């Protein structure tokens, strides 16, 4: 019987079962192997072989040896006994079991062992009923018996079970020493390494958890859950590629592991491999069509791929499964917004808010959309709600400011930006917006200071460069204004509309300067301006925006007096000629422009002769 315990424990240690709750037969044994359990019944060894899953060959050998031991020990037939989990309901049931005549006939040691098994079965039962305090006590009682028996393996199994029960009660710190003690008694208990990993993971000690699951999978490479959990920990450590590899392993062992497919999708999302992520979510959904989170995440991935209609369909499915899935309502709203179905989007956010009135992002998004729908007062109310939920919602403060500005409540607008800056002084956009508000107040120098701050935080903020340019122009600092506008334009960052405005403004600034130079007969300066404009148009050409320069020049021309028009034509000649880079072509272009103004019939020889008279 001692041999039986040892072998059984060995089998357990191989990860086939964690407890003996099946029947142990005398004579020929039928072995049924599942992930966590081995049941032994009277049957032929050949039959047993048929029942074994791939990879359980080693266990079969062990069981064959066990069978011999069983025969010798003449252990009672327990197939139908109360050791089965469903029948052990209390400590009293355990006592009753060992009080049965068959058990009573056993030697003392074997009776103790039987009690220990019965206690672990009781623990398991309560475990499933989530009565973890009872579970823990049953395992502790079993452990006491294991110590009495001086059975190291059984002690290790019991310690593992106590640790697991503590873990389920959220006492992970307390659980760790139990797992460690179990592993000191028996180093190759895959289940214990696994459970220790879970406890460490719960304690956010992800690296150590990974090491434990490494051990578990080293002992049992088919330990799908250990692969899966290792993937989750690596994910938390932002090691997404490695996480994907672990999920793949888990899936290899168990292709129907829906959660592994799901989490693989999440990791692929992190790697921006959205198409592959969608395929993973599809697998998870195929295994479990009611997997709301998989539908939800598929929607998110499709949204990333700009497949908004399909994303909406996924979120609809997630909502169908779980009508209170606030995030799905929220995201559906976002996608509908992208599809310009603004009213529908607002309805979705309303639904999300109805489910979760503290859904700050939903209030915020609703505010943004109401703003777009020009329902400004309502938008402000939404931002207020978002701020009420999250007073540090800097974007909400920022957008509230912008909306108040449109309602001509400029003082309030600046106050909102100040609040946003107080929350996050490094939010370049807010500095930029504050600058724009101060510009409206004609506080130009203060506006420039705000734009400087925005640029200091984010030198790539084209809008700040542009706006600073506008403010400097108003301050009469034309050269600095142009420098800033050019910088902003070269960043190619702003929306086309904004860039066009900046380019038009810049063109007209240069033209204005050029015109002044022509009028004051400063031809070198006029040449510089014409060259500058030519260079600007060349830059604009790179973005197919040369026509913006031309159009701005035409508009500029339309506003000129007759006298100014003459100067403009002169500047235009310079601009046209200096736009040509090839020297000979430029010479020819100049010749064309001189020829058109040259008196008919007057030769070069005569003209020079006249010069020499």
């Amino acid at each position, binding site marked *: 019987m001692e041999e039986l315990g040892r072998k059984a424990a060995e089998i357990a240690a191989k990860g086939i079962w964690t407890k003996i709750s099946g029947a142990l037969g005398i004579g020929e044994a039928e072995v049924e192997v599942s992930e966590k359990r081995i049941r032994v019944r009277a049957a032929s060894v050949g039959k047993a072989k048929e029942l074994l899953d791939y990879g359980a060959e080693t266990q079969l050998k062990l069981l064959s040896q066990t069978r011999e031991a069983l025969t010798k020990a003449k252990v009672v037939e327990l197939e139908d006994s109360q050791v089965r989990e469903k029948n052990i309901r209390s400590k009293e049931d355990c006592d009753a079991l060992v009080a049965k005549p068959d058990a009573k006939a056993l030697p003392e040691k074997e009776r103790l062992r039987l009690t220990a098994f019965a206690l672990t079965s009781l623990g398991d039962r309560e475990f499933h009923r989530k009565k973890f305090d009872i579970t823990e006590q049953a395992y502790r009682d079993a452990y006491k018996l294991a110590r009495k028996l001086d059975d190291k393996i059984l002690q290790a199994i019991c310690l593992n079970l106590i640790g697991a029960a503590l873990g389920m009660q959220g006492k992970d710190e307390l659980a760790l020493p139990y797992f460690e003690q179990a592993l000191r008694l028996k180093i190759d208990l895959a289940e214990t390494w696994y459970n220790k990993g879970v406890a460490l993971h719960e304690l956010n000690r992800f690296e150590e958890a990974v090491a434990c699951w490494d051990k578990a999978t080293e002992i049992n490479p088919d330990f799908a859950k250990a692969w899966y959990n290792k993937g989750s920990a690596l994910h938390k450590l932002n090691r997404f590629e490695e996480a994907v590899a672990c999920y793949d392993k888990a899936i290899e062992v168990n292709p129907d592991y829906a959660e592994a497919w799901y989490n693989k999708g999440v990791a692929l999302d992190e790697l921006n491999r959205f198409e592959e992520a969608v395929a993973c979510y599809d697998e998870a959904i195929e295994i479990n069509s009611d997997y709301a989170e998989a539908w939800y995440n598929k929607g998110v991935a499709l949204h990333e791929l700009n497949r908004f209609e399909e994303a909406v369909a996924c979120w609809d499915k997630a909502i169908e499964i779980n009508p209170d899935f606030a995030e799905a309502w929220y995201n559906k709203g976002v996608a509908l917004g992208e599809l310009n179905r603004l009213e529908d989007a607002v309805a979705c956010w309303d639904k999300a808010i109805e489910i979760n009135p503290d859904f700050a992002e939903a209030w915020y998004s609703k505010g943004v959309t109401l703003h777009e729908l020009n329902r400004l007062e309502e938008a402000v109310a939404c931002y207020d709600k978002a701020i009420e939920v999250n007073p540090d919602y800097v974007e909400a403060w920022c957008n509230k400011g912008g909306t108040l500005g449109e309602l001509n409540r400029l003082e309030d607008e600046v106050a909102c930006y100040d609040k946003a800056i107080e929350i996050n002084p490094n939010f370049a956009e807010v500095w930029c917006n504050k600058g724009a508000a101060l510009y409206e107040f004609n506080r130009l120098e203060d506006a420039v200071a705000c734009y400087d701050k925005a640029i200091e935080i984010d030198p790539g903020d084209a809008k700040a460069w542009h706006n600073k340019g506008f403010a400097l122009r108003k301050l009469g600092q034309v050269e600095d204004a142009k420098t800033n506008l050019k910088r902003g334009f070269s960043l190619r960052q702003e929306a086309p509309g904004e860039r066009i405005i900046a380019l038009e403004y810049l063109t007209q600034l240069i033209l204005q300067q050029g015109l002044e130079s022509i009028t004051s*007969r400063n031809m070198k300066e006029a040449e510089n301006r014409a060259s500058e404009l030519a260079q600007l148009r060349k830059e604009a050409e790179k973005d197919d925006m040369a026509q913006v320069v031309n159009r701005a020049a035409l508009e500029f021309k339309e506003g000129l007096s007759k006298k100014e028009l003459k100067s403009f034509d002169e500047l235009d000649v310079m601009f046209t000629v200096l736009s040509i880079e090839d020297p000979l072509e430029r010479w020819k272009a*100049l010749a064309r422009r*001189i020829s058109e103004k*040259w008196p008919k019939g007057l030769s*070069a020889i005569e003209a*020079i002769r006249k*010069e020499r008279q």
Partner: protein
Amino acid sequence: MKEIAVDSNVLVSALLEQEEHHHEALKLIEGLRLKQYLFHISTLVPVEVCGAILRRTKSRARAHLAAREMEGLTDEGYAKLYPLDEERMAKAEEIALRDGLKGHDAVIAEVAEELEVALLTFDKEILRRFRAKKQ
């Protein structure tokens, strides 16, 4: 590379499409960049060319651009400028007296004579009178 002293009318011709010698003059300008020629020019030439263009077209921009292009030729080494210093003035006086050239024409011709290169001008009167090496 052929070195030539160039008169103002040649450059003006290169800048006038309707001019009889326009294509010929333009070829010379093209030839400069191909290093087929090197122009030697009195400082009087750019002044005359710009003045002529300004007065005839009444366009400062055009005149300025013409000056700019000529400056470009000297800056890039396709043409060399010769200022009218005392020595050259004395030499020009000699040529004017010797060949019966007008003062300005003599200044232009002086460069050709000083450098012993041909003078390129479309003005037949100058060609007829000037006795130095001729183009």
